C-alpha cells in the first residue's frame, strides 16, 4: 500500500466509524438524522421563549444570538464528550485496527462535525427567517468552525487519555461542562456581568469562538486581531498539548486496556 492509498483507507475507516456513530445514535428513533436538525431549533425555541424577554433590550435578534452560540457549543461538547469514551468503547477494535489509535478520536470528532453540518441546515434557514442581512464576512465562519474543531480535538485527546486511566473523569467533566457553558455566554449578553466572572468569560476560548462567530454572522464585522490571535493560539496550543499527552501515554493505554 502506498501513502495515498493508505490515506484513502484511513479516510474510509473514519467514514465508516462516523457512519456507525450516527446510525447508532438514532438507531431506535423514527425521525433519525432529522433530530440533528430539529434539536437546535427546538432548544432555540424554548430558550428564546423565556430569555428573549429578559434580554430584549441588550440583545438584538435573540434567537440567532442563541443559535449561533449553541451550534458551536454543541460541536464542542459533542466532540469532547463522545471522544472521551471512545478508546474504552472500542476496546475490541483497538488491537485489530491497522491505523494509529487516533483514528477513533478523529472519528468521534468528525461525527460532531457532521452533526454540525445538519444543524447548519436549520441555522441557515433561521438566518433567512429572522432576516439577518447577509454580509461578506460570513465567508470566514468556516475558519472559525475549523479552529474550534481543532481546539475540540486537542481537548478530546486529553480527555480520552485521562478516561482510560480514571473513570471519574466522565463525571467530573460533566460538572466542568456545566460551569463552562455558563461561562460561554450562550444565552445572555456577556457585558452584563462584571468583575471576575466577566474576566473569566472574556478569556474563555470557547466564548472567543462564539463571539467571533456572532460578529461575523450577525454584525457583519470581522473579529479583531487579538481575537484571531487568541483563537489560533488556543486551537494550536491545546491541540499540541493534547497530541503530546496522548502520544506519551499510547503504550500505557494499550496496556491498561
Amino acid at each position, binding site marked *: 500500500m502506498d501513502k*495515498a492509498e493508505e490515506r484513502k483507507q484511513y479516510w474510509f475507516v473514519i467514514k465508516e466509524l462516523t457512519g456507525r456513530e450516527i446510525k*447508532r445514535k438514532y438507531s431506535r428513533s423514527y425521525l433519525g438524522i432529522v433530530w440533528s436538525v430539529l434539536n437546535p431549533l427546538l432548544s432555540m425555541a424554548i430558550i428564546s421563549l423565556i430569555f428573549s424577554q429578559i434580554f430584549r433590550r441588550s440583545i438584538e435578534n435573540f434567537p440567532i444570538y442563541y443559535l449561533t452560540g449553541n451550534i458551536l457549543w454543541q460541536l464542542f461538547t459533542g466532540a469532547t464528550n463522545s471522544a472521551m469514551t471512545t478508546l474504552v468503547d472500542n476496546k475490541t477494535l483497538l488491537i485489530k485496527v*491497522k491505523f494509529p489509535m487516533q483514528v477513533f478520536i478523529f472519528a468521534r470528532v468528525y461525527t460532531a462535525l457532521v452533526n454540525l453540518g445538519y444543524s447548519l441546515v436549520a441555522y441557515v434557514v433561521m438566518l433567512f427567517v429572522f432576516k439577518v442581512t447577509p454580509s*461578506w464576512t460570513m465567508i470566514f465562519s468556516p475558519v472559525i468552525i475549523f479552529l474550534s474543531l481543532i481546539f475540540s480535538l486537542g481537548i478530546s485527546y486529553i480527555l480520552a487519555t485521562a478516561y482510560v486511566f480514571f473513570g471519574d473523569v466522565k463525571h467530573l467533566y460533566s460538572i466542568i461542562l456545566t460551569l463552562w457553558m455558563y461561562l460561554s455566554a450562550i444565552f445572555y449578553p456577556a457585558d452584563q456581568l462584571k468583575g471576575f466572572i466577566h474576566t473569566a468569560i472574556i478569556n474563555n476560548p470557547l466564548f472567543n469562538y462564539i463571539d467571533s462567530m456572532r460578529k461575523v454572522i450577525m454584525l457583519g464585522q470581522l473579529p479583531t486581531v487579538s481575537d484571531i490571535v487568541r483563537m489560533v493560539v488556543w486551537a494550536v496550543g491545546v491541540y499540541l498539548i493534547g497530541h503530546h499527552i496522548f502520544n506519551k501515554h499510547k503504550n500505557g493505554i494499550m496496556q491498561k486496556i
Partner: protein
Amino acid sequence: MRKSLKYVAGSFIFIFLTVFVLLDRQVLADGETAAFGSETYEWELGTSSPIGVYAKSNQNLDAVEMSIIYDAEVLEYQSGGYLAEPGLVKVSASGVNEAEYKEILSFIPRIAGTSTITIEKLHIRTMNGEDAEAAATSAAVSIPIPVGCALEDIQLNGMSIEGFNSTQTSYSMEVAADASQAELLVLPSEMQTEISDTALAVGNNIITVTTTNNGGEKARYTLNINRSEKTEQVAAQNEEPVQAEPSVVMQGNNSASARNQIIFATVMVVLVLLLFSLIILKINLMRKNKEQQKRQERIKRQADRKTAEAKIRKPQKVKASIEEQSLRSERQKAEIVIAAKHITMEFKREKDEATSVKELFIRTIKRQRSYEKFRALKNVSFKIHKGDVVGIIGTNGSGKSTILKIISGALAPTKGTVEVDTRKIQLLTLGTGFDFELTGRENVYLNGAIIGYTREYIDEKYDDIVKFAELEGFMEEKVRNYSSGMVSRLGFAIATIRDTPEILILDEVLSVGDMFFRKKSEARIKEMIHGGSTVLIVSHSPSVIKNNCNRAVWIEKGRLRAIGNPAKVCEAYEKMQETS
C-alpha cells in the same frame, strides 16, 4: 508527500490569517456617525440657545471625543463642553456603555445672520476596544435680524445683488475673472456698517457686511463671491470654502471604503485561485509519486526475494530444540515472516491501583504510590517461517495475548524487537468488533474498513462473505438479533475472505463454535495455508493445536518453555497440567 501537504496547509492558514488581519483594518467608520439634534436651528439674538450633539454607533461605546468648530465672532460659547480656544469646543466622555452618546451645548448668538456649527472630528472607542472615526457633519444656524440692522440693498460693482431681500443674509454670486476687487455699496448709506476685506482672489471669497443698530445689536450679511478662473483649475480646488469641506471628506471616505472593498474582493479571489492551483499541483504530485512508488516497490520486491533467499541459505546459530533443527531442512527455502527477538514485556503495575483521581492525588501527596513490576514475558525469542501454522499454547494468563498484541504492533515490548510487517497481519478474535446496533451489512463494511479492506474490495467480495458465513437473508438484520454462531461465522468470513491474508492470527477462534462451523473453518485455514498464508493459532486447548498446526510454541508464565513439533509440545503441556 507529507511535506507538500504541510505546505498546502501552511499556506492555507497563512492566507486566511493575512486576509483576516488586512480586512480587520478596514472596519473603521462602519456605522459610526456624528449628528446634531436637527439640521437647522433658529436662534434669537442674545439668548442662550441649546444644540444637541450626538455620537452614534451600532456597538456600545466606551469613550467619545468630539471637536466642534463654530464661528466665534457670531456665536459665544456658553456651556456643555470644554472650550479649547475661541471657535473650538471639545466634548469627551468615557465609560459610556451605550450605543449613543449625547451632549447639549449652549451658545449665545451675538451677531444676527447665518452661521454653521460643525462636528469636525468624532473619535470613538467601542466597548470591544475598537477605535473608529466618523465623518464630519454640520448644522446651519440662522438668527433673525433685529430692528434697525436690516439693509435695503447691497450693490456689487455698481449692480444690485440679484434677489436681494433684507431678511436673507447669505448670497452667492459669480464675478468675472478680471475683477480683483469687489466694490460694495451698502444702502441705506447712513447705516453703521463694517465691511471686511474686499480683495478678490481667484475662486471663492467671503465678504461680510456687519451692521450695528443704535442698541448695539449686530447683524451680518455674507456674500460668497466666486471669481471664475481663467488659468489653472487646480488652484481653485485648494481654496474651497471651509463649509464645503465636510462633504468633501465624506465623499472621500465613501469612495475609499468602496475602493477598499473592491481591492479586498480581488485579493480574496486571487488567494482562492492560488489555493486551488496549489491543491491541483498537489494532486498531480501525488499521482506522480504513486506511479513512482509502484515502480520502486516492484523493484524492491524482486530484490527482497533474492536477499531473503540468500539469507536463509546461510547457516544460522539459533538456540533451539532438536526438533526445530530437524524441521528446518524442510523449510529452508521459506521466508521468515515473524522474528521475535528477546522480547521482554514489563507492566508497571501499581500495587492496589488507584482508580479515581482523588485517590491518585492523595496517594501522590502521601508518597504511597508503590509500583510493582510485572513481567508478562521474559526473554522470548522465536522465528516463524512463511507457510507455517504455528500454535501458541499456554494456560490462562501465561502471556499468550500479550505476545499477540506485540506481534500485531498494538503494544511495544519493553525490551527486544519483533520483525514483522504489521500491515500483513489479520487478527481474528471471536465475536468482537461487532456493533450490535448495526445491521450485518453495515458491520461487514465497518469491520472490513478497520482490518484494512478498501471500499471497492468489500463491494467486490461482499457476496462471497455472505455466502461463506451462510447468512443470506440476514444481512439487513441487526446483529443484536444474531445467534453467537452467526456472529462468529460472519467474523471468520470477513477476516479470511482475502485471497492470501499473509499472516492470520486466530485468537481462541477454533475452540468455540458448532461442529459444522469448526470443520468449515478448519478447511478454510488449510486452503489458506496452500495459498501461502502463515497462521498463528492461539489456544489453551491442545487438541486444536495438534489437529491444525505443524509447529507449536508453549509459553508458560511468560517464559518460552518449548518450541517445535506440536505433538511433543502438547504432550509436555498436558503432562504439566496433570501434575499441577
